[in-house]
């Protein structure tokens, strides 16, 4: 329906060229073109948070982000995360049982890491607010919040 656009994207540190329809979302590009599957397609409406990734240092909804608009802005998913903070969050999610079906987990990790980078010692209310756009349909919120607080405890300066 819409003309193709030709652009280059830096995804998890690797730059590749794409030629896809202009309405292609970042989520479709990641999952269907690149097999980068940590961002999940839940609602495709920006509500559920399962597709949350980082673009230009900020968490965004991959399902609402046009891939062509990310040219020149680094795209980072959990696959590309090798930092200590993400590692601490991942260990803490596992240790405290904050993963049930796992569908929301990648998005939770991106949102939680963004919070801990900006607020190294968050209150429980700050964790809840930061994760308010990430829905867990197993409703395992309590353990997720506990896991973020535990990771903060481990990593805070």
């Amino acid at each position, binding site marked *: 329906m819409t003309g193709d656009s030709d652009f280059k994207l830096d995804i998890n540190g690797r730059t590749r060229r794409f030629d896809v329809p202009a*309405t292609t*979302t970042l989520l479709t590009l990641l999952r269907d073109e690149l097999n980068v599957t940590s961002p999940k397609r839940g609602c495709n409406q920006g509500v559920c948070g399962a597709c949350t990734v980082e673009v230009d240092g900020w968490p965004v909804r991959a399902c*609402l982000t*046009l891939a062509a*608009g990310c040219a020149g802005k680094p795209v980072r998913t959990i696959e590309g995360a090798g930092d200590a903070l993400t590692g601490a969050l991942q260990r803490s999610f596992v240790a405290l049982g904050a993963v049930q079906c796992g569908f929301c987990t990648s998005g939770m990790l991106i949102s939680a890491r*963004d919070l801990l980078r900006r607020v190294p010692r968050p209150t429980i209310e700050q964790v809840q607010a930061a994760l308010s756009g990430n829905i867990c349909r197993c409703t395992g919120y309590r353990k997720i919040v506990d896991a973020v607080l535990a990771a903060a405890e481990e990593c805070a300066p």
Partner: protein
Amino acid sequence: MLANVPEARPIAGGATLVAMINADLVRPAALVSLDGIAELSGISGTAAGGLRIGAMTRHRETASDPRLADSLRLVAEAAAVIANPVVRNMGTMGGSIAFSDPCADYPSALVAARAEIEVAGPTGRRRVPAAEFFVDWYTTALEEGEIVVAIHLPPAVAGVSTYRKIARTAGDFAIAACAAVVEDGGAVRVAVGGCGPVPIADPAAEAGLAGRLAEPGVVRAFAAGLAEMADPMSDVRGSAAYRLRLIPRLVEATLGDLAGMREQAA
């Protein structure tokens, strides 16, 4: 390009338009990204002492700008309760108001703040007061080929202001919302959102309210008047009857809180 390609759509943050494309509600013939136009981004002071919020300014930036204080604080408060932190990284003020969702947070806040919307199109530029910009359900004063360039706010005046939203859960669209300003000089401005096609405001009645917030009967009559002007819808969030009962209580509570804040400050 917007003017020349029929059915071309400008795209701002994508929070609404891409969701509509995903749901197959719209099939734009072309998308024109407004990203990267310097004039559309950021918040700056104006020669008149007010603030100019570029249309592409994200809700996150608006929510945290310290210049949105006193009589302008309600604009930052409205930005801070839109959706959730991730969507606030994406959505823009221009994109939000151009959609004119009556349950969105900016329309009533901008009406109460006496904002003016700067729009540009093939025939030039013009400024539209917020109260005239929102025309009907999902309809603005924008003409074919026009886009929102910026939102202009008058200089902050000493006083208090706030944005209160009743919603089912944090980040949901409003069942009802009240944006209100009480200036130290006594002037009061109120706009109710989520309860009809456009924000509800009654400038003539506001004039009668100036300096009289301590008189419960006067405030009650004012709040009841706004409810009478409302034509709310019934939707999944609440019935029209419920909204009509909410409006006067929400307006009275909001004005009561602002009066209390002024006393504390004094």
